[in-house]
């Protein structure tokens, strides 16, 4: 839990703390969004599991997108933890 007192500290340090808190909030939001999209893509992969050579490219594209989103979700989570260090 972060207190308003820390954010209201005089000078640049306080503003930096505010920025870090805001960045963390935004990174959380972005991570949640990516996670939600990942779930959506996962469902789409299930529903598009057509055994057809002609649409295989779509299945690959969806699988690739899912893998990329997983990776970016992990990256955003990691960066959020990095930012959180400012507040420790």
């Amino acid at each position: 839990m972060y207190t308003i007192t820390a954010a209201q500290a005089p000078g640049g340090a306080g503003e930096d703390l505010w920025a870090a808190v805001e960045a963390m909030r935004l990174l959380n939001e972005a991570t949640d969004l990516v996670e939600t999209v990942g779930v959506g893509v996962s469902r789409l992969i299930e529903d598009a599991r057509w055994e057809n050579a002609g649409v295989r490219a779509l299945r690959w594209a969806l699988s690739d997108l899912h893998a990329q989103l997983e990776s970016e979700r992990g990256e955003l989570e990691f960066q959020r933890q990095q930012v959180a260090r400012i507040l420790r």
Partner: protein
Amino acid sequence: MSGELNITSGGAIHVDSGAFRAVGHRLAALAEHVKDAARVARRAQHTLAQTADRHPATGQIGNCVHRLESQGEKAAKTAQGTLVMADVFELVELRTQQNLIGVGDAREALAIQDRIHELLASNPNIGPAADSLVTRWQNHRFDGLTDQPWDDTYTLARWVGAVLAPTLFGWAALWLGPEPVGSTMGTLRDLAVDVDLGTLPSGTRLTGESQAVTLRTVESRDVKPVAGVRDSIARVPWGRTAQVAVEKYTMKDGSVRYVAYVDGTREMMPGTDEPFDAVSDVELYMGRKKSASYEATLQALEEAGAEHGDTVDMVGYSQGAMIVSHLAMDSPYHVGTVIVAGDPVDPALAADQTIVRLENSADPVNALATGGTAGGSGSPDSFTVQREIPGRSSPIDPHMYGDYMNTGAELDRSSDPRAQALRDKFFHELGEAARVERTEFSAERA
């Protein structure tokens, strides 16, 4: 793709246009959410960039934003391509529908034309893409057919000759018998395309008088509900005395429905008592006439208690597939679901009828259907399963009953949503039956 399934929604259509379009729309929406995520992450990056010592994560978050933007763009393009392909599939479906209804229903044909115009006007690439799709399908619909082993060529030629004997084509086939199989199969393919009898246009009805057959019950017993495509094919009385089996499903609410299983050709030579012979093949395929085997199937249904208007689902192999295809188009029953293996014809079914076609890709009997229509027919749940079964010692090998059972087993294991829907709807419903009475019938020409 030996052994591997290729499931289409019929003809050149990889996936039903409605299902494909739905995926395109969902992906387009998801692509926007990816871009939203990128925008939010960018705000986080800008916020951090304002800090006095510019937090080291700023650069990494920036890279993440770029990748998310790129993924969002890529997903949006894939969605756009999917929607265009859905339009292409729809155009092929509509053109096929138009061909199938012909001049019989001008109003319906005109309504279809309006949508065709709309699609063509929406994107100049859709028309050429649909033409290209159909051309590619036409060029590949007989793949594998001419690459068969030679060993039993003469047997095949005799078979083809017997089937087509009443026509000049039969003599040609007999003459071509000693030729390499590739030539024989190529000729068979070309003849099938030339006579153009493999596709049954909307409104096709068998003509001629009903032929007299004598039907006797071979066996009657209670069985478990049919549980899958392999089981459906296995219940066709292939290799048994009976040629037709009918199962009466009494549901828990007391309602009754039926499933008929019809076998293929039993006798190649004419002049025997066997109704499931090559004469019936010729009558059904070349003449579109009622055959003794067709009559035997109708009598078996009547004998089993099916009344006009009852729901009768049908499973057929080879000639039996041709019979059930005709019955699905024109019979006193409501034929809801049809499963055919090695069907020499492709029927035009209504939007409330589901057809599942099993086609071993080098099957010469199946080749008589000439790939069916470019756009398929029946409900959106209808589909065609293709599997490459190379000939082992004879070109007729891919038509073998056992290979179709294996194709059915593969389909039962498939995670394709169309196969899943068949399990969830058709087989699940039948599985709810309180009682299943199976009767096997043997027929002879009277």
